[in-house]
């Protein structure tokens, strides 16, 4: 009885999460099995149509675009971010604090502003084109906006700090004596890096990948502003269907598809990191 009473303290928290995540998610699952009439009103009749449409080649293509974008974002941020994290973590204390501060600062800067910055850099009359013209490297303005690659640059740029911080934390925990032992036993720097450093920082790598992959699935304002809708991603599709398209059941089915992709990566994270709650991701 007394433990029951003590647990009653958690009621407001349970209510909050239950009402704002639990019930809405159940609603999405239910909606995904319903259909709609021509005006966009929900028709209460069980159907698997929405899932059949999700598997339609045209829509599978959208899944593939999003998956590819998220995977490439993960790989690119890792390739750029790992060295940054590794170098920063090994700096002397004062410069290390400065580097970490500069890495974290973008978390506070408006994400729209950071996307907009790329519109200014990559636009037809943008800074990079101005520079290339002025230097005589090109004689005509090079179109760089509204491509898959533009969305990729923007998404990777947006999420890069998450990767760096995740890897930084695990490099920081790395036991230096293991590296010295490896050198003492005659291993080269390269061998030590691939056989000791990488495996030991794997939790950070996988954690960073998870933190980058999940938002990359849904940063639709980045692909909207930089990709111009030329490549359709899940986020844009769901947004259009839920609002202007007025096809809420289909939007629900696609949202669940997105959640499934996120769970896929999370299960990988849980397997590698053994961080059961997933809380370590956000510290």
């Amino acid at each position, binding site marked *: 009885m007394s433990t029951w009473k*003590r*647990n009653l*303290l*958690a009621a*407001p928290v349970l209510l*909050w*999460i239950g009402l*704002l*995540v639990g019930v*809405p*998610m159940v*609603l*999405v699952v239910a909606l995904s099995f319903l259909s709609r009439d021509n005006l966009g009103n929900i028709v209460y009749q069980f159907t698997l149509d929405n899932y059949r449409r999700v598997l339609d080649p045209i829509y599978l293509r959208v899944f593939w675009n999003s998956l590819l974008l998220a995977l490439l974002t993960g790989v690119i941020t890792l390739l750029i971010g790992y060295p940054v994290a590794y*170098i920063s973590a090994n700096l002397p204390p004062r410069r290390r604090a400065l*580097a970490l501060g*500069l890495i974290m*600062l*973008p978390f*506070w*800067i*408006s994400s*729209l*502003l*950071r996307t*907009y*910055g790329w*519109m*200014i*850099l990559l*636009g037809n*009359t*943008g*800074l990079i084109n101005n520079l290339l013209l002025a230097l005589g490297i090109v004689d005509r303005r090079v179109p760089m906006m509204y491509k898959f690659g533009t969305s990729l640059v923007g998404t990777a*740029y947006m999420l890069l*700090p998450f990767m760096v911080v995740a890897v930084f934390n695990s490099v920081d925990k790395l036991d230096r004596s293991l590296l010295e032992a490896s050198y003492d036993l005659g291993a080269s720097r390269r061998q030590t890096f691939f056989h000791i450093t990488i495996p030991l920082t794997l939790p950070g790598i996988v954690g960073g990948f998870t933190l980058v992959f*999940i*938002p990359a*699935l*849904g940063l*639709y*304002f980045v692909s909207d*502003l930089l990709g111009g809708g030329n490549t359709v991603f*899940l*986020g844009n599709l*769901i*947004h259009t269907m*839920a*609002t202007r398209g007025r096809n809420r059941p289909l939007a*629900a089915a696609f*949202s*669940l598809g*997105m959640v499934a992709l*996120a769970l896929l990566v*999370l299960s990988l994270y849980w397997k590698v990191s053994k961080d059961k*709650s*997933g*809380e370590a*991701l*956000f*510290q």
Partner: protein
Amino acid sequence: MKAKTRGFGTVYLSLFFVFLYLPVLSVVLYSFNASRSTAQWTGWTLDWYRQLFSDRAIVEAFRVSIVVALLTALLSAVLGTFAAVISLWVTSRMKTAIQGMMILPLIVPEVALGVSLLFFFNAMRLPFGVLTLVLSHSLFCVPYVYIMVRLRLQEIDRSILESALDLGASTWQMVRTIILPLVAPSIVTAALLCLAMSLDDVIISTYMSGPRSTTLPVHVFSMMRVGVTPKVNALCTLILIGTFFIIGLSQLITNKRRFAK
């Protein structure tokens, strides 16, 4: 050999920071360009800033954003702190459950959260506006308050709490006079983070905004879709200055705490 690698490290880091801040700096720089186009630089001006203040839609969106951010920060600070503090009393199974639930809104893709809340509030016939915005923003803010306060609670020496109880303090007295003052700096820092996150949110806010209650980011997003205009640059620069003001505040609080120790 060692000096060489260090040299490489410095160069690589410098290049990385140029890459990280170049887009931000270009936005700021071009907010002062007299020309409407980024194609050329025709001199310095403050005209674009002047235009902002006469734009009613922007001023109104800014007002909505500030109200939503303040309410979100307040709600999240209370609920997040509550969840962290009661974790000291509930059973360990409940504690794990709370931990898991706090992570939930952070790992579900934001688009899916936004869509589900859109359907839910629609079904509840709740009018879209400040209320729906605050409730939805609390989803990604409360967990951060909870995590930051809990980390601070772990640092507290348990014996202080026990001696308070031994000396006859009631549980509520202990919470009020010992626990809350000790975690207060973490609560304030977390609340400022909530303020910044709420002011910056685009994805959930697009689904939650009502016809007459658009937040600033949602409005800025619609302006950006039209293309690059110096007015947007000026607006972004002002938002940037505002954010730096918040960071300055939070730094001040953290440093004070460090000196107090």
